[in-house]
């Protein structure tokens, strides 16, 4: 059972304050060390030799010229792998190096390590591979047809190429549609989205202490530890993973670093030297995970007054050649398919399908943005059919405390959605805004403005699909001078976790934030804390930090009472005061020295696990997540009718993520998520042909620049406190992306008068909408 902790009694001092980020100074000085910034004596440069076929048998692999290159130190083929040839993620279908058959362009076949980066590239080109091409399939629907080439490793699939088929069956959807006065239906398509973290993937494996240490840019050190141990045949205790500064993740560094680290480890072990493996940008885009392309079909019914009666959903995600995280991504899509609404009759069928393409994986939102595009489009289509204001329709159906979600989960607390919709309406002056936009459109010949809204819910944490991973450990040490070292098992990748966790520690200890230092994440410091994903860090890791802080604080307070000879002390100004006579006090440094001199235990470990969840795979019903976060976004866009170019001009975002620990970093998360959503909706497109990513570069794949952002942002938080989170906090990280793109899509549809049904809304696609609307 998860333990529930009450927030500390004293007034909050650090939590809720816009404290500057702990890592900001090193970063602005250029002193933060990212993966490629580290070097070790004798270090080699690793490189993967990759398949250039989407599906083929390897007839012959000749690496003699590679090995003969004067600067090549070693080559590795599957027979050199000391342990198992597998990258264990959820399933065990993906080999470290292709085992006789390649299933996607870019799949690693062999490895080499060379004295220089340039030599590694040169040598990789000398590999001779003879293939026998096999029939390949790239489209998920085609892959499900009888007679389609078999891509999925059968043990990892439910049948044929269907990795997973998941359902929700709530109520009787036909009855729900029979009760409806209005039914809308639509099909929506989305392509890849590339993470485009600015720091490419990179790891360095160092053989040492009879084991392996891997340094790298990564989100999930314990995943990496597990993969390296499997591939090396080592006990976990001989594998240590240390996170370097990490230049963005967004899910892209969830599972991929396991593969890279395992490759580097095998090379380093064979060479007996450190091996650095950093991907050039084109290799990174072409061969690592992305957001799943999807085909999504919806039917939604409502009564004349707007009350939703039924929703029916069928969606297909193109998983790529191996399972990696697809079953979890599909599950989140499934649970989120009905949106943040009260709907009595729900039927959802989700499929993840294997094709001969690069495996897709985690990306902020994790399978939900694809269905959110659809459900939020459906809400606007319904509003139009009903002649209702889209915000009124959303507010009317929004989940409230006491309601049941689509999986039949009764919401007992912390549902800030109706309030968020109300605040977004007020902040944007929604009614006046409509008039303003109408006046603009009446006046302009070649420009049209449009407004769009979206509302979303987000299940915080791993949920009932992976409850075993929803835990975290923490270690807090009071140093002899009164400074505090905090070690945690979840990572800072830019989102601000380090600062927020330090704030929670400081608040829990009753000490100033400045005294807390967060140690680099290292698997040898704390127990397996699960992955840094699912917007769970503040909530779950935060509770572990608070647990450690409460234990250590009891000792600090005990020491202070002995030192002052009083029965009660209170913290303030970095000191602990005699409660009866506040003029008598001791500083934290004095307490620490006293504890040290009296041989007291000056460290405490903390532990947290998420509250229990449950789910029945047959019906899709259950308590899917321990709590949900919510948001309402409003976007204003301006479309150039002549060029089809779209700009987002103004944006309003209201979030309920419970207590906000740091308003300034939270604001940064929201605006950054909006930027990624704007990119998803408007410009991010990664065409592929025959399983090959055609243009894996930033020249061709455009992410938003400062010029593409709205001229005006309003961000606000409504804080519906969650009793299971530290000081009432829930998760935030993924939610802004999830909400933003759909608001932009609805705004474009409003501006053009035609429903946008595919991302991205490039100028060509928008001109097509305008043409059809005319």
């Amino acid at each position, binding site marked *: 059972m998860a333990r529930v902790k009450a927030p500390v009694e004293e007034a909050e001092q650090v939590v809720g304050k*816009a404290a*500057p*980020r702990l*890592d*900001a*100074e*090193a*970063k*602005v*000085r*250029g*002193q*933060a*060390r*990212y993966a*490629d*910034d580290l070097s070790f004596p004798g270090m080699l440069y690793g490189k993967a030799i990759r398949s250039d076929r989407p599906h083929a048998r390897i007839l012959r692999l000749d690496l003699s010229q590679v090995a003969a290159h004067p600067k090549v130190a070693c080559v590795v083929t599957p027979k050199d792998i000391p342990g198992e040839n597998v990258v264990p993620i959820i399933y065990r279908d993906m080999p470290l190096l292709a085992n006789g058959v390649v299933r996607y362009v870019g799949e690693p076949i062999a490895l080499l390590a060379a004295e220089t980066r340039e030599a590694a590239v040169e040598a990789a080109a000398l590999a001779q591979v003879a293939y026998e091409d096999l029939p390949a399939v790239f489209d998920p629907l085609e892959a499900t047809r009888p007679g389609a080439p078999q891509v999925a490793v059968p043990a990892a699939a439910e049948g044929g190429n269907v990795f997973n088929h998941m359902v929700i069956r709530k109520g009787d959807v036909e009855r729900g549609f029979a009760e409806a006065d209005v039914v809308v239906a639509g099909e929506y398509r989305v392509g890849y989205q590339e*993470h*485009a*973290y*600015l*720091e*490419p993937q990179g790891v360095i494996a160092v053989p040492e202490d009879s084991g392996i240490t891997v340094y790298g840019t990564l989100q999930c050190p314990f995943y990496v530890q597990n993969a390296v141990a499997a591939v090396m045949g080592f006990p976990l205790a001989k594998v240590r993973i240390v996170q370097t*500064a*990490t*230049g*963005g*993740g*967004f899910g892209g560094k969830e599972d991929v670093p396991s593969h890279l680290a395992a490759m580097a480890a095998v090379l380093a072990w064979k060479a007996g030297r450190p091996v650095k493996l950093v991907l*050039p*940008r084109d290799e990174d885009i072409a061969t690592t995970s992305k957001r799943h392309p999807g085909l999504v079909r919806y039917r939604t019914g409502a009564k004349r007054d707007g009350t939703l009666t039924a929703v029916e959903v069928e969606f297909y995600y193109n998983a790529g050649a191996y399972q990696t995280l697809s079953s979890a991504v599909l599950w989140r899509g499934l649970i989120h398919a009905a949106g943040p609404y009260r709907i009595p009759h729900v039927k959802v069928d989700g499929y993840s399908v294997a094709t001969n393409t690069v495996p897709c994986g985690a990306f902020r939102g994790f399978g939900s943005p694809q269905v959110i595009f659809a459900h939020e489009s459906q809400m606007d289509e319904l509003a139009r059919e009903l002649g209702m204001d889209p915000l009124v329709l959303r507010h009317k159906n929004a989940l409230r405390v006491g309601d049941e979600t689509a999986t039949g989960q009764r919401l007992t607390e912390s549902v800030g959605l109706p309030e968020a919709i109300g605040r977004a309406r007020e902040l944007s002056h929604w009614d006046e805004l409509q008039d303003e936009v109408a006046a603009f459109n009446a006046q302009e010949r070649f420009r049209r403005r449009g407004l769009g809204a979206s509302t979303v819910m987000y299940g915080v944490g791993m949920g009932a699909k992976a409850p075993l991973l929803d835990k975290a450990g923490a270690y807090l040490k009071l140093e002899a001078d009164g400074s505090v070292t905090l070690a945690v098992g979840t990572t800072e*990748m*830019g*989102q*601000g976790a380090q600062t927020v966790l330090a704030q929670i520690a400081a608040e829990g200890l009753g000490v100033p934030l400045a005294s807390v230092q967060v140690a680099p994440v290292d698997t040898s410091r704390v127990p397996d804390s699960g992955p840094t994903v699912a917007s769970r860090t503040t909530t779950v890791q935060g509770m572990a930090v608070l647990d450690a802080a409460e234990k250590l604080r009891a000792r600090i307070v005990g020491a202070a009472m002995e030192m002052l000879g009083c029965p009660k002390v209170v913290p303030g100004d970095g000191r602990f005061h005699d409660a009866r006579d506040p003029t008598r006090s001791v500083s934290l440094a004095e307490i620490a020295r006293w504890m040290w001199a009296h041989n007291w235990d000056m460290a405490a470990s903390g532990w947290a696990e998420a509250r229990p969840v449950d789910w029945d795979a047959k019906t899709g019903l259950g308590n899917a997540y321990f709590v949900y976060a919510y948001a309402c976004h409003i976007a204003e866009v301006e479309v150039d009718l002549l060029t089809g170019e779209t700009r987002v001009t103004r944006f309003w975002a209201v979030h309920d993520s419970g207590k906000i620990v740091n308003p*300034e*970093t939270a*604001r*940064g998360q929201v*605006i*950054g*998520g*909006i*930027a*990624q959503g704007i990119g998803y909706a408007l410009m991010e497109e990664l065409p592929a042909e025959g399983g090959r990513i055609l243009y894996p*570069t*930033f*020249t061709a794949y455009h*992410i*938003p*620049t*400062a*010029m593409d*952002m709205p001229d005006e*942002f309003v961000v606000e938080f409504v804080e519906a406190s969650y009793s299971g989170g530290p000081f009432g906090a829930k998760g935030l990280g993924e939610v802004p992306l999830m909400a933003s793109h759909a608001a932009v899509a609805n705004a474009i549809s409003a501006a053009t008068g035609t429903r946008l049904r595919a991302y991205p809304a490039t100028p060509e696609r928008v001109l097509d909408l305008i043409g059809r609307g005319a």
Partner: protein
Amino acid sequence: MRIQFRLNGRPVAVDVPPGRRLLDLLREDLGLIGTKEGCGEGECGACTVVVDGKPRLACLTAAVQVEGKDVLTIEGLSEAGQLDPLQEAFIETAGVQCGFCTPGLVMAAYALLRENPRPTRDEVRAYLSGNLCRCTGYAQVVEAVLRAAEKACPR
């Protein structure tokens, strides 16, 4: 070949092969790892340094091209230990998240403020549009630049 130039205010003389990128000279030969490689093709701006007062992409600049010039990297901006007002402003506005694009953004902003000490919001956005950031959505970055400009020359 041997080249001489000024790096962060100090004279430097180094031997470089003709094709070596300024980025590799800085990072690998001289150990200045604050300048980052994000794409290697001049699209992301993470490797922006200031050469004779102008922003330059170190991944597209041959090392030999800086012969006789004045090169400023992120390390040179706070060399005496004192943060530049721009660096302070990035900290204050939370214009830093993952931080990988930050050195490039700060150097581009530094060049902007030399050219145009009191830019408008739109001028900042336009000038920084060659520097990609995937985390922040730029709002707090732009605020940082405007704040530093305001501090350096108040109206």
